[in-house]
């Protein structure tokens, strides 16, 4: 079809790199406004208590201090942060945008200091006196689930919501199965940790009653709606502006208390207000993720066919239900068994409140955790039944014959739409992964001691839900020089959408990519948009671009037809030129010169895409120290269609390495008083350049996505999902002589060393 350009599918080097490589990226901290004030947030130093007194007077005497905001300065009732999805029970647990009475986690905003310089604001923040009558906090989810004590007066439980996922008849299947096995697993609290901390700059334009908030990411349109509602402004009077963003990974760009507080201050005082989070603050303020406990049971035939799974997951969601707080809870029960054909499922997921920083999403929410639980369970069962782990997966993975395959439904219904696996043969990525990894050659290494270390190999299969609905918009404008501006609702968080959208637009318009400029992520570009979350930007935004181009080509044809005084059907368009049969021609630039040439397109779909894949790991474990070296790691996924192999590969490898941080080192530890023990990037250990050099990622495009014009599937999260399962299975394989079966992350050297010591086998 496309003859002129074929940008889609080629490893196009990114257009955004030119500015980043030369120091011309502009992030929120780089922004300055005349007369700006700086905000410093005073945060609760205790995990649970009632505010007795706040005295800002000493702070107000400090040099450069302009004002201090506390709850009484804000209209009553104090606004609460809205939820992204409906849920019948979470309303009492919404977070007030500033603490008025109770404080429920260390780091909860209590006051805002405004000063003429950032250092001055930070100095003064130390001087705000806060007296809190401390209460006994709930730090452990077990105590909290038992209601000791209740965190919200007037409620009957600390369980904010309970989801169930049921299909078939699990009880009957368990009763009849020859083999059943129950095990408990857990994943530790950690977080996305983008390298740039959050920041905002809000400006109030009194003349026309408009508010501009710079620092948007992920969900500018949702956040605008939320902020406008809280401030009593029409939605169209608020603009969220996106600058360059130093990483998102699901946590950045949700609506946080500071979104309101900074905007409120800007309107109240008429000065631009700038706030940049510091790293210590970041750890106690940005959404936490992943802390989860699973009690799971599997039922199998003796040949390894899985007939049922059931279990209960408790997710520690922290002190409040944040906008996306329930996503990991509902995802984990829907996705734990996801890549497999298991007819009987019965899962329950509880979102449990504790006195910790509220949780939200981190890349692959609920899927990383569920994959870890399931892949460990399958390896444990395979070992005990006496079936090879690979054979067990081959027997149960979904095939193209099963497609489309409805994932188990969730109650209460939460508006996630259709969750039906769309296409693929999950055995394809398994076999390809084994081949690339050299499984058969490495098999002999499993469990052997070489040079003082035990070697092991392990595997993990996964699916990734992408293309989150409901839709996305795009607008295309041809300028009078024939260049094309493409405006998309998708946000850029480092994934390269300026390049990807330009590839898609240039191919659809059959014009050179250099003629396309992509503008994104700000609410002033489009009437409606959504953003970048749930591996959706390329699929939803890209499909909206295709829709806008189709409209544009139709307009172009009509303009040319009028000029040539012929019917539009007699005009052909290719390569940016409209032609009549007699040879008369008109360029896009000429059409644009004749009047504004602009078209909008929308892509709407409630059908998800499901990228799938398999990862294999080869590790060496030192029994004397418990440390693990990753010797080889291969991940193979099928994304339907690849728009840009360079950026796609970057997504998979980058996500994989994040997953190693989740498995080995990242941990947001709290003490018994609810004090966060992590305050810096020296305590919170994200992977380093020296840690994981051996990673291979292979992406296939075997089964296109059937429900979007590109055939592409969301692919930003898949890489992280199988890491926990594959690596831990490899460690268990290495330590098979000890029958060490790790069930809890992170697998730090002390924890593994301890497991080895406690095993009954003789120590080496």
């Amino acid at each position, binding site marked *: 079809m496309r003859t002129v350009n074929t940008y889609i599918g080629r490893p196009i080097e*990114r257009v955004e790199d030119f500015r980043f490589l030369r120091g011309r990226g502009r992030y929120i901290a780089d922004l300055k406004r005349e007369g700006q004030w700086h905000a410093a947030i005073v945060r609760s130093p205790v995990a649970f208590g009632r505010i007795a007194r706040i005295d800002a007077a000493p702070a107000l005497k400090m040099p450069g201090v302009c004002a201090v905001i506390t709850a009484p300065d804000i209209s009553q009732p104090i606004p609460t942060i809205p939820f992204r999805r409906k849920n019948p029970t979470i309303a009492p647990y919404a977070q007030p945008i500033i603490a008025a009475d109770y404080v429920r986690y260390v780091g909860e905003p209590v006051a805002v200091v405004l000063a003429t310089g950032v*250092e001055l604001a930070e100095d003064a923040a130390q001087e705000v006196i806060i007296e809190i009558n401390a209460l006994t906090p709930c730090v452990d989810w077990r105590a909290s689930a038992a209601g000791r004590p209740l965190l919200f007066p007037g409620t009957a439980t600390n369980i904010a919501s309970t989801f169930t996922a049921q299909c078939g008849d699990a009880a009957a299947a368990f009763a009849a199965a020859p083999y059943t096995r129950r095990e408990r697993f857990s994943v530790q609290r950690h977080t996305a940790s983008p390298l740039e901390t959050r920041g905002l700059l809000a400006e109030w334009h009194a003349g026309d009653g408009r508010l501009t908030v710079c620092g948007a990411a992920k969900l500018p349109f949702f956040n605008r709606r939320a902020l406008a509602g809280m401030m009593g402004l029409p939605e169209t009077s608020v603009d969220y502006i996106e600058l360059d963003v*130093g990483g998102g990974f699901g946590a950045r760009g949700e609506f946080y208390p500071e979104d309101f507080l900074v905007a409120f201050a800007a309107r109240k005082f008429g000065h631009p207000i700038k706030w940049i989070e*510091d790293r210590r603050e970041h750890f106690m303020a940005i959404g936490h993720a992943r802390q989860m406990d699973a009690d799971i049971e599997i039922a199998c035939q003796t040949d390894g066919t899985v007939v049922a799974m059931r279990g209960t997951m408790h997710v520690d969601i922290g002190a409040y239900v944040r906008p996306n707080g329930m996503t990991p809870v509902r995802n984990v029960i829907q996705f734990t068994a996801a890549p497999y054909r298991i007819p009987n499922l019965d899962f329950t997921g509880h979102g449990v409140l504790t006195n910790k920083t509220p949780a939200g999403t981190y890349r692959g929410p609920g899927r990383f955790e569920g994959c870890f639980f399931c892949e460990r369970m399958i390896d444990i069962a395979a070992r005990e039944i006496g079936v090879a782990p690979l054979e067990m997966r081959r027997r149960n993975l979904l095939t193209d014959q099963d497609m489309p395959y409805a994932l188990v439904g969730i109650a209460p219904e939460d508006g996630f739409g259709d969750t039906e696996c769309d296409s693929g043969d999950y055995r394809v990525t398994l076999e390809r992964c084994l081949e690339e990894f050299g499984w058969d050659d490495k098999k002999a290494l499993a469990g052997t001691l070489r040079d003082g270390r035990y070697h092991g190999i392990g595997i993990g299969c996964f699916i990734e839900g992408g293309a989150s609905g409901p839709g996305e918009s795009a607008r295309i404008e041809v300028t009078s020089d024939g260049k094309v501006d493409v405006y998309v609702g998708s946000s850029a968080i480092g994934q390269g959408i300026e390049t990807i959208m330009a590839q898609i637009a240039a191919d659809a318009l059959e014009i050179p990519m250099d003629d396309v400029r992509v503008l994104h992520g700000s609410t002033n570009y489009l009437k409606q948009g959504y953003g970048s979350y749930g591996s959706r930007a390329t699929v939803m935004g890209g499909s909206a671009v295709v829709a806008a181009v189709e409209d544009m080509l139709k307009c172009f044809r009509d303009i040319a037809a009028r000029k040539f005084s012929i019917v539009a059907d007699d005009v052909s368009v290719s390569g940016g030129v409209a032609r009549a049969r007699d040879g008369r021609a008109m360029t896009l630039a000429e059409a644009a010169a004749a009047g504004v040439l602009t078209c909008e397109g929308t892509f709407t779909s409630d059908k998800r895409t499901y990228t799938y894949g398999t990862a294999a790991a080869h590790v060496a474990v030192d029994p004397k120290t418990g440390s693990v070296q990753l010797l080889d790691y291969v991940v193979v996924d099928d994304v339907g269609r690849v728009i840009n192999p360079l950026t796609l590969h970057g997504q998979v490898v980058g996500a994989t390495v994040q997953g190693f941080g989740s498995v080995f080192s990242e941990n947001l530890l709290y003490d018994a008083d609810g004090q966060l023990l992590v305050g810096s990037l020296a305590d919170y250990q994200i992977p380093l350049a020296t840690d994981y050099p051996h990673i291979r990622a292979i992406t296939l495009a075997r089964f296109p996505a059937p429900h979007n014009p590109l055939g592409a599937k969301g692919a930003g999260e898949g890489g992280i999902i199988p890491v926990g399962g594959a690596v831990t299975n490899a460690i268990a394989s290495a330590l098979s002589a000890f029958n060490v079966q790790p069930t809890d992350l992170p697998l730090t050297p002390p924890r593994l060393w301890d497991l080895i010591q406690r095993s009954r086998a003789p120590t080496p």
Partner: protein
Amino acid sequence: MQLQFEVNGQAVEIDIAPRTTLCDCLRDHLNLTGHAGCEHGACGACTVIVDGQAVRSCLMLAVQVAGASIVTVEGLADGDELSPLQEAFRKHHALQCGFCTPGMLTTLHALLSDEPMADADRIRDVLSGNLCRCTGYIPIVEAALEAREHYAKKQGSKAG
């Protein structure tokens, strides 16, 4: 206090509070890149080159660079042309969000200027002081390895 130094070959004279870090000075007062990822020397995003050495500008006060010569990421390219190291970063997709990139480039520029034949292990070792949350480091190492040739030539021509 009054301060004079050189940034990217240009003489600079500014009046700055003694407690201002070099990182904040570059960003807030000179409109250059000063990416503060942690402000405690752990992430390396703020790395600049001071008198030939890669240093964390968040751990240095601006007043400490009086009389020094500083190179920031803006000083690595020749006009609008990307340097060979920058070209290699683009080719290998060694950056995603771009926030760590200035520190990665300055660190590698300082390393390869001194040790143009640094091997992958040496490069990884030096980069272990710079955090990247997006790429997994593999393409950054590949880009550095590719750029070595250019630095070797430059050193060769200097020696010659």
